């Protein structure tokens, strides 16, 4: 790991000034950053440790029923906050399906949004990667691409965003609060991450020195709490990133779907909101036929980026199944294996 300057600012202003220098990076939980630094994938010359900045560690309930989650709230504290889990069960389930208990105890809300991709070529410093070294080329394109994108990718990059948390957040219209040299502003999470286009190294709207200070969920997001699930297909249940995942939330009124929220993970360079699919569900009954139709709509623009055509069909199935799980109702207690398709289904015999 490279040597670096270590700065521990006392105020936002100090932090932003220190992190605006070229080669600087913020350090919060560090769970992703340290791994990348160890592999030489990123080599920041300066780390600005924001983990002790005041005022970023709280879960605040807003007067309108929304919630404001400080950027330094740890993933585990948020997922285990009973009020939060009650109002936003799909978000809690997504959080608990991600990483491992030890990482969730360290990883922060802000850091989760800024996770880097798990593309093996991004990690292979001996090979070419446009995200790591702009203009170097993409070795992932066209090859074995189980973990690569089928939506939103470009010829320059087919890597996926690895977060589970963000998938549930983007479905529920989360908003990101950002502080920078020009003051504070906010961006819908859906617009926070950029598509790769010709500049896959630019993954978000953040300018140098800008800092995520909070994520907000609107009050309306809690109106889905009775029918909200996160379903994640991964190659093993213990600590693995999604091959494909979906957050699904429904508001069902008098037997018909009044509102739907759907987002996909593991299939795109950013957490992928499926608005067309949501619209396809308005006013229809919560049944498999409509869910399949919504799933079709969710993947309508998908195309393989390599040997991963199967992923399009897989993602459709996950969307449909997540909707079916959501329609069946949020379980009273989070499943023992959050996000897992192995969670016991009523009536299934386990030997």
């Amino acid at each position, binding site marked *: 790991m490279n040597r670096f300057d270590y700065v521990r600012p006392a105020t936002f202003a100090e932090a932003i000034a220190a992190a605006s220098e070229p080669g600087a990076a913020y350090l919060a939980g560090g769970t992703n950053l340290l791994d990348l630094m160890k592999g030489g994938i990123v080599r920041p010359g300066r780390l600005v440790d924001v983990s002790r900045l005041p005022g970023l560690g709280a879960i605040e309930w807003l007067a309108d029923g929304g919630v404001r989650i400080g950027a330094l709230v740890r993933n585990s504290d948020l997922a285990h906050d009973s009020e939060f889990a009650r109002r936003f069960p799909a978000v809690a389930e997504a959080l608990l399906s991600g990483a491992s208990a030890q990482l969730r105890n360290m990883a922060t809300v802000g850091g989760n949004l800024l996770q880097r991709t798990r593309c093996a070529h991004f990690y292979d410093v001996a090979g070419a990667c446009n995200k790591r070294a702009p203009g170097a080329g993409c070795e992932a394109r066209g090859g074995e691409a189980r973990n690569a994108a089928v939506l939103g990718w470009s010829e320059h990059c087919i890597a996926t965003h690895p977060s589970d948390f963000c998938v549930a957040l983007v479905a529920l219209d989360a908003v990101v609060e950002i502080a920078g040299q020009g003051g504070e502003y906010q961006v819908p999470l859906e617009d926070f991450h950029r598509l790769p286009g010709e500049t896959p190294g630019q993954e978000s709207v953040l300018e140098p020195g800008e800092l995520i200070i909070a994520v907000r969920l609107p009050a309306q997001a809690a109106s889905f709490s009775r029918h909200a699930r996160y379903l994640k297909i991964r190659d093993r249940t213990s600590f693995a990133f999604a091959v494909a995942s979906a957050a699904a939330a429904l508001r069902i009124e008098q037997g018909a779907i009044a509102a739907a929220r759907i987002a996909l993970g593991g299939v795109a360079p950013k957490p992928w909101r499926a608005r067309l699919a949501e619209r396809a569900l308005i006013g229809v009954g919560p049944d498999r036929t409509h869910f399949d139709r919504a799933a079709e709509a969710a993947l309508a623009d998908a195309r393989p980026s390599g040997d991963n055509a199967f992923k399009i069909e*897989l993602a459709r199935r996950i969307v449909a199944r997540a909707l079916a799980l959501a329609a069946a109702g949020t379980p009273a207690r989070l499943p023992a294996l959050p996000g897992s398709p192995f969670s016991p289904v009523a009536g299934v015999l386990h030997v």
Partner: protein
Amino acid sequence: MFGVGARVRRKEDDRLLRGRGRFVADIALVGMRELAFVRSPVAHARILSFDIPEQVRRQVFTWQDLEPAGVRPIRAASGLPGFKVSEQPPLAADKVRFAGEPIAVTVAATRAEAEDIASQVIAEFDELPPNVDMLAAAAPGAPCVHEHWSDNIFLETRVGQSFEKDVAAAPVRISRSIRTQRQCIVPLEGKGLVAHWDRQAEQLVLYTATQMPHIVRSGLSECLGLPLEAIRVIAPDVGGGFGWKGLLQPEEVVAAWLCLHLGCPLRWMEDRREHLVAAANAREHHYEITAYADADGRLLGVDADAWVDAGAYSIYPFSACLEAAQVGSILPGPYDFPHYRCRTFSVCTNKPPIVPFRGVARANVCFAMEQIIDAIAAAVGREAWEVRLLNLVPPEKMPFDNITGKHFDSGDYPESLRRAVAGIDLASVRRRQLQGEPDGRLVGVGFATYCEQGAHGTAVYHGWGIPMVPGYEQVQARITADGGLELRAGIQSHGQGMETSFAQVAHEVLGIPLERIRLVHGDTGLTPYSTGTWGSRSMVMAGGAVATACRRLADRLRRIAAHLLQARLEDVTLSGGMLQSGQADITIAEIARTWYLAPQLLPADVDPGGLEITAGYKPKSDHGTFSYATHAAVVAVDAEVGLVEILDYLVVEDAGTMVNPAIVEGQIFGGVAQGIGTALYECSPYDDAGQPMASTLMDYLLPGFTEVPAIRIEHMETPSPYTEFGVKGLGEGGVIAPSAVLCNAINDALKARGAVVTDQPVTPARILAALRNARAEPPP
């Protein structure tokens, strides 16, 4: 109560539970410096030059430094005719042959600084086309990994003759292409070493995480030109091995030489990326098998070609062809049939070398052969277990010499199968399949039966051509002046609990309490020569030597006791640590005190060897022991997403007499878990350029808590007729069958959709692909 057969708590656990074990990374010596290796970023290339910044030049070493100093390449020649010898300079000389091969080493006060320097060393390469796939590498015209060879075949072996005319009328003919993946071994502790020069002993002392300290010493002696007595190798607490720690590493040779050259202690710790991309791998096989059977499913013959991707170099001591040579001799498994022909190829590729991973070759041949049995059953319309039963060697034929000359020592193979069929409740699974699952998943059941040769003897290893043939296994036993017992063995216990199980054996013979028995192991300076711990041999071989040594000590104790008790020798008995004759008795401690402190009381004809013995041991048969088992599993396959859940897993096993059933069960649980990894998760893929694509434990997926189900074990216990107490080797057994069982169970589940999977690991992608193909081509 504490002897052979007792489920006692392990002696080693107290220190391990408190974090007080001493692993190699825990050893720090005064003035110690740390090493980092520069590794080839490319799979196949000529090294043109090194660019080393002048300010760190004295902290960087390459083959240009080692070779003039007399360091020799690692050579592991097989004794089998036709074997092509590879020479592996511990730092690449003029050519690199796999990505990750060490090309330079750096030295600094800390590991971080050594890595800083390593990052500044730049090599210029002239890249050559890499051999990535073994079949392409074996084809004529492939670029040679070793440029002076005529092709990329380390060795071709042949067993048996062509028998087509004998089976021309066979009603069943099954052909399969079967592929198994390259695996990394991944003990939780990687390799690591500390080297220093002991000025007083005038010895190079190497602490290293190894399963075979004596063999590492031999290898270092060969490569460094040092006499053996000038080298001491010590394996401290070792965090799992499974075969990966059963070789001489290039890094060990480099560190040992540098220690001599620089005169200061040195430490190197393999990091996990190095383990995954640059260490030795295992298990990458390709089979083309044709089996012939009669209309009942009785095997008439098996004809196979097998390729093993052996990587770039032949590793010391097992060589590049142990895996393939084993395939030829063990492919017939536990079955009795009349015709067999097998050709094997150990193929040299631009990938890391291979080491024998727990269940070496056996896991692969079981995967291949047990698929064939299921396919025959499908062809003749019978339950797969019935076809197995028809072909298994029956107990009345034991001991049995099979078609390749394997001497199955004892047991009732069909009974293990019958108990597995009953235990897994096959009938209820079949009913459940007819009913269908409420959640739409597909349920299947699978079986696999295997036998596991362990503690292979001298002739067996000589026959496989490995340069290190084990002979008599020796143990030293010494009764101390206060009545304790010290055992010294050249094996190495790294999770197998031998500090406990050997003490149980000694206690069984001498009656000395377990807490007064201590095993010294893993140190060439303190123990008799041994080839080490591998091949399911330590309990049989070294455990047998413990028993032999203790029996001879008992004899000497009785002789002294007879004199001290003024009794006749034949009247003196040893029981519970006490020697008795009639009403008179004397403790072992009292005899020991007499020998050491009051020798004037000893009989005139006392054995001058005293209370210390070195005993050598071999079983009565040199063929090795044969454990066996049937594994059975029920799985649910989610055909929408390709995921497999293991609903039930049963092992019915017979490893002869169990010294400590808790340890035996632990070996089985752990072996099955590794086998589940082989079956469903673990894979080290390479891209077309020969780059390893699994460089972290997020890419190389080990089974975790939620992947390994509760495993049920039923024991059978047929003592071996040839070994002390009837024990058989069992350390590898658990890992052999799971991939076959799960593949068969998955295929049983998929058969409703006409889909078949043949390659391992059986990933969701493969299952979905099989289902797609089945939709495309409806079953006949």
